[in-house]
């Protein structure tokens, strides 16, 4: 390691070039090849895989994923916004403790929490026992393997991704601005709609992105908690690689997903550029 400069530059290039750049190009290459009979891919260039993306069956899965991801995002936003706002405005000592409480579910492996939700909502699970015991319901609810269970699982796993960016923005709110608004005669709702929400917009958009994109691709949540009615884009792509062994088609779906994700992130960048440049990710 005589010349550290050369070493450090080569290492940066080597790792990122080899494990990010090159395989991404390989993915794009795979997406225009054909499915092989004996091997995984056959070198026969075609755009058929991309045309197949627009097959109604797959468009349907995509639309369903969009719908579920949208609902998950909206519900998470409505749960997380008041929560983050209240925490951001508590005294610092208590605030740090509450934040730490937030971090623990965030860092717990989601397979553990998804499994826990499964044992809570299953037909003979905790939820049904409790509701039956309290006399609220007389028949057990069949939540597990329904879309509702998938919604619960996705919202649970993604809620911290909404809370943290919202909190990061709301924490920066200047008390003096709110006091000035109050002095000038704004009521609570006016302060919320005309000051707090507009000023926390970058946090809202970031949180929505962090929830919306994974909601479409966390394939293990629908796999564990859902039935056929909650087969999402993530499950479709995963199946191409592990069950159907149609790698070129799976690769074309992945490229399409990446383009879709990039478009959403670009939209965020673009909208944030108009508000303030240095507050980007």
């Amino acid at each position, binding site marked *: 390691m005589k*010349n550290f400069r050369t070493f450090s530059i080569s290492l940066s290039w080597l*790792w990122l070039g080899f494990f990010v750049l*090159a395989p991404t190009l390989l993915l794009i290459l795979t997406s225009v090849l054909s499915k092989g009979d004996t091997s995984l891919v056959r070198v026969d260039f075609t755009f058929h895989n991309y045309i197949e993306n627009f097959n109604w069956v797959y468009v349907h899965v995509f639309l369903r994923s969009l719908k579920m991801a949208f609902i998950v995002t909206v519900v998470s936003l409505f749960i997380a916004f008041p*929560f983050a706002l209240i925490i951001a405005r508590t005294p610092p000592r208590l605030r740090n403790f509450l934040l730490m*409480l937030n971090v623990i579910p965030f860092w717990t492996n989601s397979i*553990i929490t998804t*499994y826990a939700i499964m044992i809570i909502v299953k037909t003979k699970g905790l939820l049904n026992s409790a509701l039956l015991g309290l006399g609220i319901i007389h028949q057990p609810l069949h939540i597990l393997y329904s879309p509702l269970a998938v919604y619960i699982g996705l919202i*649970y796993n993604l809620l911290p991704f909404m809370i943290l960016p919202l909190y990061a923005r709301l924490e920066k709110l200047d008390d003096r601005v709110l006091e000035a608004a109050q002095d000038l005669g704004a009521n609570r709702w006016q302060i919320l709609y005309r000051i707090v929400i507009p000023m926390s917009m970058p946090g809202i958009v970031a949180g929505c992105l962090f929830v919306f994109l994974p909601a479409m691709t966390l394939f293990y949540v629908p796999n564990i908690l859902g039935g056929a009615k909650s087969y999402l884009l993530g499950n479709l792509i995963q199946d191409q690689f592990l069950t159907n062994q149609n790698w070129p088609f799976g690769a074309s779906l992945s490229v399409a997903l990446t383009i879709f994700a990039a478009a959403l*992130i670009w939209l965020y960048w673009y909208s944030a550029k108009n508000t303030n440049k240095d507050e980007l990710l």
Partner: protein
Amino acid sequence: MKAIKATYVSLVFAFLYLPLLVLAIFSFNNARYAMTWHGFTTHWYHVLFNDSLLLRSAGHSLLLAFLAACIATAIASVVATALLQYRFKGKRIIHNLIIVLIVMPDLVIGIVLLILFSSLHLPLGFTSLLLAHITICLPFAVLTIYSRATDLDSNLFESARDLGASDTTIYLKILLPLLKPALLSAWLLAFAISLDDIIVSFFVSGPSFSIMPLQIYSMTKVGITPEINALCTLMLGLIFMIVGASQLVRKAK
């Protein structure tokens, strides 16, 4: 108003903690399937410690997270130094690749690496998992170290260079010691990311080296056993300790 706020916050925390609490409580329940309380037992912990498969997978996960965090932090410190100190061709590309790696969906990263490993004919197992985990931890570790390194006084490096220090000396004797807290945060972040990952591991793991999340995943298909609760409870304890430790690091800073 205050009471409403307190109730709301408590309700959200209840939602976040209920599943974890249920796991912990029922890991001590003296019944296999029932979700009612049948008395306290540590039976499932005994079962867990005799189930070599599940326990070994947990050990594998911890080993993998430890190695991935160490190697990712080491590489990240070198990459961050290159980005901070040197001008070179394609610096922007390196920068952009790091951002791409952060915003790319996990699912796509998993697939991209699967395609890479299979075209190299690398058998899926420990090596592929380790390389994949280092790759997913790397951008977060680089950003953590880089953002802290930009706060350092650049006069330090210039005066060291004037006094005849080589690039290697500057890295080893100035940067690394000054960046100790950043290296620790980067290590903890990388460790947590590796332990937390499911999707990337799902694509690049093989039967020769099973890790905990995938083991639990395959067990949920067959049915539920309380020894998973016991294992998850132990893992939760570990996460409590890591979060506590990172809080201490933050306080010390």
